[in-house]
């Protein structure tokens, strides 16, 4: 026992020593910003950053073969973009998938003093505007942006829209056909159809206080119907809503697995789940709201030239088609076909969504909304 423990102690101590050495090693590494003896995997971003702080021009002038990308896209999509970009330009993308635009923005802000990323891609352009105001983004207007609708281009040139997502209704066909169709309820085609009392407790949507999509939906109703009628609509809808989820996407899977009959979320996410084989369909109602997916170059990034190449590349027809296919979102280019299973964008009568106004009234709207739903 004595001797056995002695040996085991040795092992534990050795492991502990190893652990502390890794920690120390990694600390040292970050201090001198260079070598990566203990954890080679951390080396990549490190060396990128040291290059950045030393001489950004020099590294881009020397024709670096790299691009560090922060993404708020789905990971599968990033991987495909990475492969395709390498094929087309020979440039290697190092990406960090941050899941949501909010996290990506938080990250870029936190790294403001020594940027690690060259480019930020994905997520609504609303997230890019404040970054531009903080001086985190680099101005760039792509030559490929000229033919696009004006609403997709930043008038100041800090961000660039390259895809578009719309809000839609997700419907569980199995439950609908079994429970609601016999009662004579028609499949919902408009936002107003959701007010049918048949949906009471069977409809789910997201909370504007926490979910970006949830807020765009609420703003949509206010823009679509005007202030007063808009609130009436929301109040009536509230009677049908089972609960408001914290995230915009939460309702899709809950509807897909039959917990609820209908829900509100981003159409492209709904299509994605439908393609997995769930008995759901997407409905894009008239007067729906939309988000413009953005891309922006981070000021002070190490590979500025490659970042510009990437923006140009994103706006080509080929990549527009590729993105539409993989993410089920509309391209900003008119010559790209709509995603499979969705109406052409010309036929969708988009609401006149005033982004500046939507951003300005957010605090008041959320407060009023919170009061309205009470403790539901």
């Amino acid at each position: 026992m004595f001797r056995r423990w002695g040996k085991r102690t040795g092992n534990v101590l050795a492991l502990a020593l190893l652990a502390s050495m890794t920690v120390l090693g990694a600390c040292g590494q970050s201090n001198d910003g260079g070598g990566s003896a203990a954890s080679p995997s951390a080396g990549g971003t490190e060396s990128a950053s040291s290059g950045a702080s030393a001489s950004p021009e020099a590294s881009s002038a020397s024709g670096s073969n790299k691009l560090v990308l922060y993404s708020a896209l789905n990971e599968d999509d990033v991987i495909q973009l990475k492969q395709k970009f390498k094929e087309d330009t020979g440039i290697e993308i190092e990406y960090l998938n941050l899941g949501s635009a909010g996290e990506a923005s938080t990250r870029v802000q936190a790294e403001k003093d020594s940027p690690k990323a060259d480019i930020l891609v994905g997520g609504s352009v609303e997230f890019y505007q404040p970054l531009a105001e903080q001086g985190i983004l680099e101005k760039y207007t792509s030559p490929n942006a000229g033919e696009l609708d004006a609403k997709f281009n930043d008038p100041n040139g800090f961000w660039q829209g390259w895809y578009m997502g719309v809000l839609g209704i997700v419907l569980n066909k199995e439950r609908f056909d079994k429970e609601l169709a016999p009662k004579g309820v028609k499949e919902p085609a408009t936002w107003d159809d959701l007010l049918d009392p048949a949906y009471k407790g069977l409809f789910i949507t997201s909370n504007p206080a926490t979910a970006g999509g949830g807020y765009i939906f609420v703003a949509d109703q206010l823009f679509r119907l005007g202030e007063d009628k808009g609130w009436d609509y929301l109040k009536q809808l509230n009677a049908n809503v089972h609960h408001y989820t914290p995230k915009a996407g939460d309702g899709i899977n809950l509807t897909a697995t039959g917990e609820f009959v209908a829900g509100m979320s981003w159409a492209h996410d709904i299509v994605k789940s439908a393609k997995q084989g769930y008995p759901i369909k997407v409905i894009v109602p008239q007067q729906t709201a939309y988000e413009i997916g953005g891309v922006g170059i981070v000021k002070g990034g190490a590979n500025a030239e490659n970042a510009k190449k990437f923006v140009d590349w994103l706006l080509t027809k080929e990549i527009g088609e590729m993105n539409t296919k993989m993410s089920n979102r509309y391209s900003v280019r008119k010559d790209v076909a709509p995603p499979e299973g969705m109406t052409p964008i010309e036929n969708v009568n988009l609401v006149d969504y005033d982004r500046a106004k939507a951003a300005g009234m957010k605090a008041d709207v959320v407060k009023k909304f919170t009061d309205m739903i009470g403790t539901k």
Partner: protein
Amino acid sequence: MISSALRKTWMDIKKLKHEPALAVVIAAVLVTTGFFVLWPIVKVVSFPRPADYLQLFTNARWFQAALNSLFMTAISTLSCTAVAFLFAYAITRLDIPLKGLFRFVTLLPIVSPPFIVALSYILLFGRQGIVSKQLLQANFDIYGWHGLWLVQTVTFFPYAYAVIYGVLKTSAVHLEYAAHNLGATRWQVFRHVFLPLCRPGIAGGALIAAMNVLADFGNPMIIAGNFTLLPTEAYMQMSGWFDLSSASVLSTALLLPALGLFLANRVWVGRRSYVVVTGKESSLRAYPVPSYVKWGLFACCLFVALFVLAVYGVLFYGAFTKTWGYDWSFTLRNLKYVSAKGTELYNSIRYALFSSLAAAVLAMILAYLAERKRIGVNRLLDLLAILPGAVPGVFLGLGFAMAFNRAPFELTGTSAIMILALTFWNLPTCYSACLAGFQQIGRSLEEASLNLGAGSFRTFRSILLPLLKGPFLSGLAVSFLRSVTCLSVIIFIYSAHTSVGTVSILSLVQNGAWGGASAFTVVLISIAFAVLAATRLIPATQDRRSL
């Protein structure tokens, strides 16, 4: 009163000049711990403008969230502690079958990554749930505080169990015999002798459970419905609206009740310690309980065990089905997500291993200094070691991101920041275990060793360490498991090359790829258990010599 206390502290500190090595260690531990615990907290707390804090009262939604958080913490802590006590009692005191299963059940929920288990609950107990709708035909709605209560109880009772088990295992059986002998009935013995002796354990367990419930945002996100809670709000303010200021306000609001709980615990338990290992050894079998009590408790344990197994069973099964929750036909397709993520899995295991070891070692040193040495700053060390437990994971992660992002402490994007954050996040778990261990080892054993010529270090190594092997390893194991499955702490500090498995799970859940997320979770859990088994660190197998 205060001045005399200060003078005493100063006297104790002055005495340290006789032991320079000890003084250096203490200074190093104080500086390191203070730097990695207090500095990030200060960073977060000082981020919002003072006016932003007023919103906590003016914003009805947040105020409600704060009340809800307190309510949920209170009821869940009660239920967690009760279930944990039930399991600990059954496993340590009763001669019942299936103990192995019960032990396993108390480890399983510790390794559940956020989000994914909540989905299992919905599938089982949702409005169309397999159990609720199809089995019981009940119109049961899980969304809301009652559903969340159930989920939080099952998710967090294992943390309380770990602590209570440690204390029950070593509680003095002969005192119960003494009480019986004095004419006390079984119930009286239980109330007057057994429970008071377990008080430190129960209080410690309740504290750990309360802290976890208070800080959890994964389960409420999906289960709570319209029942808003502070951590969920904080997380959504950051990830949904990138509103760092609001997030900091909400996180800070969580700190206060957490600190309150910590203080209450210290007051209630006090410096009470019941020395059990004195070096005079005896072995007594536990006093038998009547068989109806025994089998009644067994039935309760079995019920909870089946419940947990069902939840994880669904998760496991879902990993191999075509469409999660809809088309249950078998497929291996979901595993392709896993194979593409080798680096993340490797990182998960690596970081978890290093951080849990570092935490266990640091905790041992801290516990030793705080409990065994009169150095004037004992209370401060104690506070520093337990404080990270009062800080919600998201808060700690955010604090690390904010505190170590510029020279000379620029750790952004390194493995070091991941390991350090996880280490300090795990510190309270390991510390509580070690502290309880120290409190149960009589001082005379230590003195005997000194007396025989062993120095402080040697005594620590050959007497205290072996006797603390149990608490040390259980702290290590729990830390390892929760590190592998931790998301909250690392969500703001991982980078392209230091991403871990839970991040992949999160993005799969966000993509609606629940099958893939389940598969990933199953693989991650399996690897975690395999690593534990490989190093024979699972406490259940280490009972060769009970204290």
